[in-house]
């Protein structure tokens, strides 16, 4: 009897700890949401906007220099994720052909890049030499080959029963047909997990733009947001009821909102992705 009481006390304290933790995570985000709707610059923490208005958002969307980066973010995320998934699945499929002459060479060639690389400047010089800098190609193609994700995909493919490949070959399927008709349909979970990881990487990309793109015509929304928050690139607030602070906060919300809406439904795929890597490696 005594022990039961002790356990429930622990449960209550533990529950309280997590409620506090959840608040610590959410307060910074809530502050941004409130400020994005508040036409006055809010002082301290408000539970609700003091003078509610959508002018911050209207300002962002009416501004042509803000819409373009948003569209670029969408285009590069979609194109990049598709190309990255194509490379990861093709590479992973070849790496499970243990009998293929040269298979180990290809595997080692990819793994070596995880240990050693040319570094920031030689990479920049190669991309500049190929005239890829200041084009969207560099931010779409350069991150597309991710050896870590390719290895995750390979681990997943290894779980497909060998007999399926054999019977497909007996039925006269070419490697490409086997890949499209057997491997890909059986890997929906892995495609979702790894595809989402790529999509988040592309959507959040800042480093590659900062390094390889100097022409603001090709900035994505992260670059634009950075410029705005640093104060060097604020849209004019004259003629609008929104203050600079409101517009900054509205821009932050706009860049995270697509993900926030999808996130509760996608969470299990992200967790699964980590566990593909954790179970075997």
């Amino acid at each position: 009897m005594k022990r039961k009481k002790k356990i429930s006390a622990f449960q209550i304290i533990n529950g309280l700890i997590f409620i506090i933790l959840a608040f610590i995570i959410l307060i910074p985000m809530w502050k941004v949401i409130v400020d994005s709707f508040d036409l006055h610059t809010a002082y301290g923490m408000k539970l609700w906007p003091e003078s509610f208005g959508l002018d911050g958002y209207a300002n962002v969307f009416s501004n042509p220099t803000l819409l373009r980066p948003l569209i670029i973010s969408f285009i590069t995320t979609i194109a990049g994720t598709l190309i990255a998934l194509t490379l990861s699945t093709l590479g992973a499929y070849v790496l499970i052909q243990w009998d293929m002459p040269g298979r180990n060479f290809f595997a080692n060639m990819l793994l070596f890049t995880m240990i050693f690389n040319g570094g920031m400047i030689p990479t920049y010089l190669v991309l500049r030499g190929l005239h890829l800098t200041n084009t969207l190609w560099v931010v779409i193609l350069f991150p597309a080959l991710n050896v870590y994700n390719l290895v995750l995909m390979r681990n997943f493919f290894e779980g497909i029963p060998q007999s399926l490949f054999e019977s497909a070959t007996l039925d006269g399927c070419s490697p490409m047909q086997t890949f499209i008709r057997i491997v890909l349909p059986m890997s929906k979970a892995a495609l979702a997990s790894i595809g989402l990881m790529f999509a988040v990487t592309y959507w959040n990309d800042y480093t590659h733009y900062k390094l390889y793109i100097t022409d603001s015509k090709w900035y994505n929304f992260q670059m634009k947001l950075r410029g705005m928050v640093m104060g060097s690139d604020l849209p004019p607030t004259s003629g609008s009821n929104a203050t600079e602070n409101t517009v900054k906060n509205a821009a932050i919300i706009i860049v995270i909102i697509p993900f926030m809406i999808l996130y509760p439904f996608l969470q299990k795929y992200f967790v699964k992705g980590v566990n593909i890597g954790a179970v075997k490696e």
Partner: protein
Amino acid sequence: MKEKKKNNTMAKIYKYRGFYLMFLPVFVFAIIFFYAPMLGIRYAFTDYNGIKEPTFTGIQNFLRMFSMHNFWSAFWNTIQISIIKLLLTTAFAVIVSILLNEIANLLFKKVVQTIIYLPHFMSWVVTASIFSLILSPSSSGLVNTFLVNIGVLDANSTIYFLGTSKWWRPAYYIINIWKETGWQTVIFMATLAGINTDLYEAAAIDGAGRWAKMRYITFPQLRNTILTVIILNLAKVMNLFESAFVLQNNAVLDVANVLETYIYYQSFNSGSIPNYGYTTAVGLFKSLVGCVLVLVCNHWSKKVREGRGIV
């Protein structure tokens, strides 16, 4: 005999011809984006500004690098910031995981997990934007306003957390803990879910209480996972760039500049003609230290993880 073996290989290569074709795109990407840049390492031994032909200068760049105060400061900053950040987030993630594992109400647990994973998916730019607004010394900064309201600070002496050398690193660590602790629990929670419940039942029969079970069953089971996480991340400590870059500014470079940001500023923001030879040399040094770390961690990993390396 030899002829026959050769024929066999040729036959096999022919049999796998479709696969070679499928590997071709991956091969081309690897050559262009990873191997071609490796050829550029030769610039480390030259004087090169990107326009004129490079002139060979031997180890001049390395001698200059080792004599630079800023280089050494960036080097030690990289190591200190990465390792302290790694240890702090891992420690927090372990504690949170063990406590989270004790929550009986599944719905509550699920909601908590959803919330604490969230910051991981926000970009560093968004994170830096949020925290630069919150930590701002102006009256709209949440933390300063709070400190003034509870009387810790005077309204005229607010702290510019991200712009003061004394406060930058603590702020950086706290932001990292806020962003990454939750997501790091995923891997620990997976290990905890795999613990055989018989162990707990047996311990309960032996009269073990909650703390004893955590101390003698849960924690030892997590030990291997903790070591794995630390080893895997230790191999990456030299790569620190984006998180430091978006949070730093000129006022705090003495405590915040890391090797990658040092290379960036020297190459693109130095205000004079860039010396790509010198920055390539710094990058090469960084890559070599990183490479040694990976190999050491790999060796260590094989010992801890029953023969499994990290690469």
